[in-house]
């Protein structure tokens, strides 16, 4: 039996749009709640700022 989340339409399985957009990434972000999207963005910002700070002092 197929997993419930597996789309029935094979076209949905495309990984990239014709203009090169990663559809798997979009599907993943759409699977999150708005609160989780905000938290993920903030985590990424914090990580980037930490890397910048670390490299600015070395």
């Amino acid at each position: 039996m197929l997993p419930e989340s597996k789309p029935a339409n094979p076209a949905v399985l495309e990984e990239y749009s014709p203009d090169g957009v990663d559809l798997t990434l979009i599907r993943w972000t759409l699977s999150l709640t708005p609160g989780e999207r905000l938290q993920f963005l903030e985590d990424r910002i914090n990580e980037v700022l930490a890397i910048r700070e670390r490299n600015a002092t070395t």
Partner: protein
Amino acid sequence: MQQRRLFAILRSLCQSDIEFIVVGGLAAVLNGAPVQTYDLDLVYSREPNNLDRLLKVLGELDAIFRIQPERRLRPNHSHLAGTGHLNLLTPYGPLDLLAVAGHNLGFAQLLPHTVEMDIGEGVRVRVLNLETIISIKEYLASEKDLAVLPILRQTLRESTRRPR
């Protein structure tokens, strides 16, 4: 130290009953678009009571104009009552306050095109919907705006196909 910078600003505004709409990159993120952004763009209501409350919160957030941070210039009531963009800096990061967005669309015009979202801890914010974000970026048509349009359009397509 890990900080929730964006959340902190949004929570402060909500706790003070400020009428605003999240627009720009963060609105795209909250709608599910995988894009990165560092600032927070908000269109606010220019109703006098809202301006009074907003000015008070900006003081509490220690917001200053970003153009010359060393001068620590603070926004005042007339700045907020105008039609321009206020590019501010707070200890929680950049905060851009817009009287209007796109084709001179103010808070009242944008409000029907928003979705209320729960961003955690009971904080609920009004977020511009993806269709209108795309429409505004198509209207503005700067290179920066055009560059992100393919991702926004595909996100809209996928979200329509697989509604949450």
